């Protein structure tokens, strides 16, 4: 029979520099690896949520072998569509089906433990301050710039704060939310406000808004931490001075995991009807260690990060997740590090 058909449904628009772009990159990797044996397709469903269900229904009838989509919101859509198409296989990235209620034997969910990767980012940020690599006159606290006050963003925050606290229990973290994912100018302004009030290094988790932090870091000569993809690499060619201020990026290898999903699917080993949570152990999240970090971080600090990684993998270190965390508890965590 002919080539296999895989489709990735974007419940928004491409260009977010985050899950959607990474998902599309995963489709490219599948195509690159399997060539003519596979047909891949990416469909943008847009931001109008009422259009998502009809698109899933259409696509489910078009004979795809694998239908991939991402984000938690899609779980609700799949819970309506998947039972009606028992022969169709679905993959939900960064979201979980309510398996405990039974059913959904045709959906494979995979979630990323971004809190684990962020824990390492927190160690790096706090460590750079503690060991004086970033001198105290640049600032004494670290920053976090979130797109919105929502669980998937806060999952980065909890790990980041806990990682930093593991280095310095008294660390202060300036936390801002932009309220938008595409306003780079506002992201820059928020980052500048943090830098102005004593932040020396900040972590942006805000899509296109977050990139504004890089411009701010360049302007004031302080430091930024990228997210999802290697943000140093984005500007390496076009703006080396800015790229030089990205200490590292906490990557979330959605692309790699989508390719892995397809590999497993071909082998007949895809664990449908289940959720897999992948993190440091699976190399699904982690820090970019080949860029600025290589020269910036001391060997001690790198060692400390390695130790933490091992601890998380072997379970001796537990990182709090924002999923399922009550608002009160989250507020308590944020209050504990307020500058």
């Amino acid at each position, binding site marked *: 029979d002919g080539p296999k058909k895989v489709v990735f449904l974007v419940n928004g628009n*491409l260009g977010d520099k985050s899950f959607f772009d990474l998902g599309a990159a995963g489709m490219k990797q599948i195509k690159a690896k399997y060539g003519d044996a596979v047909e891949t397709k990416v469909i943008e469903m847009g931001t109008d949520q009422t259009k998502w269900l009809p698109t899933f229904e259409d696509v489910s009838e078009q004979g795809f072998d694998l239908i991939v989509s991402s984000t938690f919101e899609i779980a609700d859509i799949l819970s309506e569509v998947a039972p009606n198409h028992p022969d169709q296989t679905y993959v939900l990235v960064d979201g979980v089906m309510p398996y405990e209620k039974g059913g959904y034997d045709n959906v494979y969910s995979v979630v990323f433990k971004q809190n684990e990767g962020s824990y390492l980012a927190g160690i790096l940020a706090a460590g750079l301050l503690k060991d004086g690599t970033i001198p105290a006159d640049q600032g004494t606290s670290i920053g976090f710039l979130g797109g919105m006050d929502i669980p998937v963003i806060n999952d980065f925050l909890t790990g980041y704060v806990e990682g930093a606290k593991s280095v310095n229990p008294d660390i202060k973290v*300036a936390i801002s*939310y932009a*309220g938008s994912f595409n306003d780079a100018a506002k992201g820059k302004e928020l980052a500048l406000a943090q830098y102005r009030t004593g932040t020396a290094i900040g972590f942006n988790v805000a899509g296109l808004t977050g990139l504004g932090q890089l411009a701010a870091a360049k302007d004031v000569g302080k430091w930024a931490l990228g997210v999802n993809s290697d943000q140093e690499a984005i500007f390496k060619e076009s703006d080396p001075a800015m790229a030089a201020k990205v200490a590292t990026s906490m990557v979330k290898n959605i692309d790699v995991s989508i390719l892995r999903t397809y590999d497993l699917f071909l082998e007949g080993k895809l664990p449908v009807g289940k959720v897999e949570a992948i993190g440091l152990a699976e190399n699904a999240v982690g820090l970019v260690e080949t860029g600025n970090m290589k020269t910036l971080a001391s060997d001690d600090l790198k060692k400390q990060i390695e130790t933490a990684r091992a601890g998380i993998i072997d379970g001796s270190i537990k990182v709090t997740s924002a999923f399922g965390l009550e608002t009160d508890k989250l507020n308590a965590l944020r*209050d504990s590090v307020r500058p």
Partner: protein
Amino acid sequence: MTDFDLASLITFIPAILRVTTPILLAALGVLISERAGVLNIGVEGMMLTGAFAGVVVSAATGSASLGFLAALIAGGLLGALLSFAVHVLKSDLILSGIALNMAAAAGTTLLLFMLTGDKGMSGSLSSKVLPHLTIPVIAGIPVLGTLLSGHHILTYAAFLAVPGVGLFLMRTPMGLRLRAVGENPESAAIAGINVRRVQIGALVTSGVFAGAAGAFLSMGYVSWFSQNMSAGRGFIALAAEVMGHGSASGTMFASLLLGLAEAASIALQGAGLPSELMQTVPYLVPVIALVVHARRRQRQLARA
């Protein structure tokens, strides 16, 4: 952020000016169109397109000035396009403006994708930025230096444009004609003025201002273009113009107020209040200011 001493207040001022700049530039554009009777709802789309053109052309030519020029031209062309829809096709003004915004959002993303293979941002293009200006002597003076020196060139341009636009509207023959056309097109036509030509000119000029506002975002604030990066500033500019009651100075004060509210909400992030509530500040302050202002006007009228 509790220590609101003079020093932190002064460091706060450049932030206000930065936030105000794109709003003010766009609002002056809206002002010109509004006084000519053709309210430019498409300012958001023109801004976005200006931001895009600036980046692409400066990357292609290696020249920030050419990029900036392209941003102005792109905004002006969209103004001409809007005026084509309104004056030649005789489409509805508001609807054409909304359609233009839709088209600009889609068109810039599409072109970006065609040029870079990326729909999100232009990070792979080495585009140029416009400079910040240090004013020789003043820069050295403690407080005054922070206030007056070191801002982006377009920040100076925006504030200098205020008396420029004010003078243009109130003191030049062209401005007189423009106001006459906006207030009473039939009378203007009777006076031998080509209403259509004046309105076309106003929309093009309005687009040029919007293009400059866009260039500030992509060649000032940051050094790249990203999807929908105007992020609603065009509508804020529309509000600023209306709050300014049709005068250039009023528009400037309204823009400054909006900028101040936004900058304050940014500075107050991390004060421990829910971020959502902090984010309402930039939108509630103008409403309150509007009411206070309107009440004062009412009282003045009542007293007169």
